[in-house]
């Protein structure tokens, strides 16, 4: 890597299913074009809801093929109980560096005790939790704040910063705890920059949510909107620090 800020895309979905059609090779090509160094890869919705292991194995496999570019996330549906805990430990043991929870897709309320066991494991294993937010009722910024209060040792990345209609909650909720971060995808770069002014650069994390969004376009827009003084932290520095808690990438 050169001396410029390392750029890490916090959320890309790898796999082919319904609206998803991203392969590892296509993703790396887009990253090259956007000069993104690394990307977190997460499973498609179906593998968040069910078939967790299948999705996790696909991420681990892709990361093994592109060890310098792709960082595997994993997911388990808390409804699987002990099996979810077991699968989470296995996936992390094999290299997963982030836990993805999508309460709306996985069918539970974000702050439901149902998810507490897997959050405890995330804390023990020192992997950050990417939680999709913005889905009314099931996953909101304040639910993320509540979880961050209950689990002070877990880093929560508020996926999409509560977009769309929880934009007015995201900043205040993120400000309540040090272990809550705002992620940019779907929050629109022009709006996300405004959040950063309020919560500070140390809480911002850039992501594209490719292929639902175009990775190159989103990163171009982010570069235009995020203040230069904040760029290195938001583009990758903050996320690298969270991922690094478990050890070097």
């Amino acid at each position: 890597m050169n001396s410029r800020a390392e750029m890490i895309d916090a959320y890309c979905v790898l796999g082919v299913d319904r609206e998803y059609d991203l392969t590892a090779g296509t993703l790396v090509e887009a990253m090259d074009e956007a000069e993104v160094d690394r990307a977190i890869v997460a499973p498609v919705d179906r593998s968040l809801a069910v078939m967790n292991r299948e999705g996790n194995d696909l991420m681990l496999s892709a990361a093994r093929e592109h060890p310098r570019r792709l960082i595997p996330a994993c997911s388990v549906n808390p409804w699987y109980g002990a099996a979810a805990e077991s699968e989470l430990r296995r996936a992390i043991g094999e290299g997963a560096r982030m836990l993805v929870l999508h309460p709306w897709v996985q069918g539970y309320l974000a702050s439901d005790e149902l998810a507490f066991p897997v959050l405890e494991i995330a804390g023990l294993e020192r992997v950050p939790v990417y939680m999709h937010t913005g889905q009314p009722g099931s996953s909101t910024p304040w639910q993320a704040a509540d979880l961050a209060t209950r689990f002070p040792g877990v880093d929560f990345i508020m996926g999409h910063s509560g977009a769309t209609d929880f934009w007015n909650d995201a900043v205040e909720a993120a400000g309540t705890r040090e272990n809550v971060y705002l992620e940019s995808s779907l929050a629109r770069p022009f709006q996300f920059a405004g959040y950063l002014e309020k919560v500070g650069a140390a809480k911002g994390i850039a992501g594209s949510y490719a292929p639902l969004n175009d990775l190159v376009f989103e990163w171009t827009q982010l570069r235009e909107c995020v203040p230069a003084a904040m760029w290195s932290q938001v583009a990758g520095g903050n996320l690298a620090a969270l991922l690094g808690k478990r050890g070097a990438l």
Partner: protein
Amino acid sequence: MIVDCHTHWGMAWTARDGENPARWLETLDGRGVDKAALMGHANLVRVDWCQADNDRVARVVEKAPERLLPVYTAWPQAGAQGLGEARRVIEKLGARGLKFHPWLQGFSTADPCFREMCAAAGEAGVPVIFHDGTPCYSLPEQIAGAARRFPATKFVLGHAGLLWSWRSALEAARLPNVWLCLCGPHMRAMEILCRRADPGRIVWGSDFGFGLADTIGYRLSVFKEANVEGALRGRILGENARRLLGIQ
């Protein structure tokens, strides 16, 4: 021609520019947008600001009538007074649409007064445009429920379901009087909506004007970057909007 079917004269613009749309229009110019459906902002926030803000929108439009199409609102919770305001903006102010934001304005689409407003809009040939994608009163399926009751009225899902309800919007748009405004869904959702919905009932919008930020650049670029067939893209940006808003 590019028509932006979802813009606002926002409170931030009033605070900075009064009722002068020159700088607002400069943003449209910079993005190649020819015309815009202009809604209020203050009138969606407080019932006691409704009439005054409707009048403000009318005065702003008067400064650029060749480019701006006025869209007003009324408050169903205000009962007969609200219905009177709906009739006033249709009959006296030349409304090209009625805008409703059920969760901001605090009413259900089952509200009897709202139903009368929908009927009045339909009789006048004025489309009814909604904020949608948000519970508990603004879901696409709820708006489609109202559309079922008033088949002669055009109902526009002003955000095509936003980020999380776009599949519901797609289903709602099977009704022949429900239109989709691509203003909020992500790129892939736009592509699917364009592929599956009636190509004659899709328009595009930016939500520009709620704040001072230029949202047109991003939202127009997302739509242009999306994998949408060229002729359809042209219809969505121009011809469909012309039919919806009655642009000659």
